[in-house]
C-alpha cells in the first residue's frame, strides 16, 4: 500500500508540474489541483505507516487510544490542508475567470502587460 501510494504521489506531482508548465491558465490551475492532492497524499504517507480499519478513537472505559491505531495528528493536518487548498483553489478559479474576461485569452503569454517596460 505504501508503495502504491508513493507511486500515486509521484505521478500526481509529475502530472501537476507538467500541466503548470503549459501555457493555458486552465491547465495551470489543474496542475495546482494535482500538486495539492499529491501533497495531501504525501502527508498521509507520513503517519505511523498506513493502518487499515484502526481509527484513532479513544474508548471511554480505556481512556487511551488502542496502541496500534492510526496517527490522528496527520489526519487532522490533512483535513486542514484540504480545507485550505479548497478555498484557495476556488479563489484562483474565480481570479482566472476574471483575468480571462479582461484579457480575452487564456494564454499566459498574452498576460504580459505588467512585465513589459
Amino acid at each position, binding site marked *: 500500500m505504501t508503495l502504491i501510494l508513493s507511486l500515486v504521489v509521484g505521478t500526481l506531482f509529475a502530472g501537476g508540474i507538467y500541466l*503548470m508548465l503549459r501555457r493555458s*491558465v486552465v491547465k*495551470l490551475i489543474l496542475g*495546482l489541483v494535482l*500538486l*495539492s492532492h499529491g*501533497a*495531501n497524499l*504525501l*502527508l498521509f*504517507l*507520513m503517519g505511523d505507516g498506513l493502518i487499515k480499519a484502526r481509527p484513532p478513537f479513544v474508548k471511554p472505559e480505556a481512556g*487511551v487510544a488502542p496502541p496500534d491505531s492510526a496517527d490522528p*495528528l*496527520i489526519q487532522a*493536518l490533512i483535513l*486542514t*490542508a484540504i480545507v*485550505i487548498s479548497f*478555498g*484557495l483553489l476556488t*479563489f*484562483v478559479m474565480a*481570479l*482566472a475567470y*476574471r*483575468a480571462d474576461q*479582461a*484579457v480575452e485569452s487564456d494564454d499566459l503569454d498574452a*498576460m*504580459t*502587460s*505588467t*512585465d513589459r*517596460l
Partner: protein
Amino acid sequence: MAHHLFLPLIVPLLSASVATIIVRQHGWVRVIAVAATLFNLGYGAWLLVTIAATGRQVTQAAGWSAPFGITLVADGLSAIMLVLTALLTLVTIGYSFATVDARQERFYYYPLLLLLLFGCSGAFLTGDLFNLYVWFEILLVASFGLITLGGSRGQLEGGLKYVVLNLFGSICFLVGAGLLYGVAGTLNMAHLAERLSTIQDASLVTAVAGFFLVAFGSKAGLAPLFFWLPTSYHTPNIAVTALFGGLLTKVGIYALYRVFGTVFQSELARLAPLILVVAGVTMVVGVIGAMAQVNVRRILAFHIVSQVGYMAMGLGLVSVAGMTAGILFMAHNIVVKTALFLIGGAAEHLTGTGELKQMGGMARREPMLALLWLLASFALVGVPPLTGFFGKLGLIQAGLAQEQWLIVGVAATVSLFTLFSMLKIWNEVFWKKAYSDLSAMPRAGVGLLAPAAVLVAVSIAMGIGAAPTLEYSALAAEQVFDTASLVRDVCGPNGCEAVELAVGH
C-alpha cells in the same frame, strides 16, 4: 503562562469580523480598523519591553501542554516584527483615508487589511511549524483579496501570477512540513529543535530543509524565485503596494530566520554557502532589474528583491553577529521601504502617473514631499546616521570577521547601484523641470504627507538611537539561536521528550 499572547490575534480577528458585517458604514469601519491596529501597536510595544525585562513569553492554547497542543511563543524577533506590522498597518490605514475610493472600501478593504494583520501577527507568534503554514495561508488569502481589489487588467494579470506562485510555495511548505513530521514525529518547533539534533539520518533532513528553503525563499522573493514580485506589486492601490512592499517579503525572511535559526540549526551550517550565493545573486539581480525600469513603483519593487538579499546574507553568515545585523536591517527596511512607496505613491497620486518621463517639478511644487523622499532614500542607501547605515555596517563587519570577502564586496557594490536608482527617481520626479503646467495639480494634504512623515521620523529615531536598537537586535538574534532555553521555556526543565514519555506515547 502568558495568555495575553492571544490578544494581538483575537483583537484583529474580531474587529475584522465586525467590520465585515457593518462594511457599508464607512466611518465606523475606519474607527474599528484604527482602534484594532492601535491596540496591536501598543501591545507590541509593551511586549518589546516585557521580553527585554523577563525573556521569552510562552503560552499553550487551552492548557494542553507542549508538544501536544498549540503553542504560542514570543521572543525578541517576534516582538520587533509584531510592532512593525502594527505600525505599518496603522500608517497604511491613515494613507488609505486619502487615497482609497469608497467603492473599494465597500468591497471589504479595511476588513482585509485587518485579516492581513491577523495573519502576520499569528505567523510571528506561533511556535508550531504546521500552524505557521496555516498563518501563512491566512495572510496570503487576505493579500490575494487586496492585490486584486479593483479588478483592473494589470491587477488581474499580476494577481494571477502572484497567487499561483505563492500557492506553489505553499505546497512546497506543506510537503516539507509533512516530510519533517515523517522524519521527526513532531511539528512543535522546540520539540523539533530537540529531536533533530539527535537524528542519525541527516541526508533526509537536508532534503526537507531544501523544501523549506524553496518555500520561504519564494515568499521572501529570493533569486530565482522572485518573479511574482515585480510583476504584481505595482498594480494595486498605492497603500496596498506600500504595505506589501514593506511587510510581506519580510514575513518570508522571518520564517527563514526562525526555521533555519532554531529548527534546522545543523542544516543551516551545511546550507550556508548556498544561502550566501543566493543572497548575492538576489542583491545583484534586484538592483540591475531596477536600473532598467522607468516607473516609480516598479523601480522600488525591484529594490525590495535586492534588499531581501541583504537579509538572507544575515542568515547565511550563520553567526549571532550576522543575524543581529540581519534583524536590524530588516527592521530598518520594513520602515523605510514603506515610506518610499508612500512618498513615490503620493507623487504618482498627484500627477496621475508613475512613469518617470511624464513626471517632474515636484521639488518646487511639493517641497515637503521632496524632503521626505530625500531622507528616506538616503536611509535606504545607507547614509549615516540614518538606519540603513547601521544595518549594512553590521552585515559587512560580520562578513569581514568571517572572511566572506565575496559577499561583502557584492553587498558594498550593490549599495552604490541603489544610490543610482534613488537618484534617478529624485532627478526625474522631483528635480527636473515639469513638462506640463503643474498649477492645476492638487496639493499634497496632510493625509498624504503625515503617514510617510511618521515612518521617516521612526527611521531617523532608529538611526539616532542606534545603540538600543542594535542591542535589542542582538538580544533577538541570541534568542533565535538559543534552542536550549527555548525547549526549557516551552516544555519545561526536562525538555519535550520527557513530557511525551511521561504521557506514555
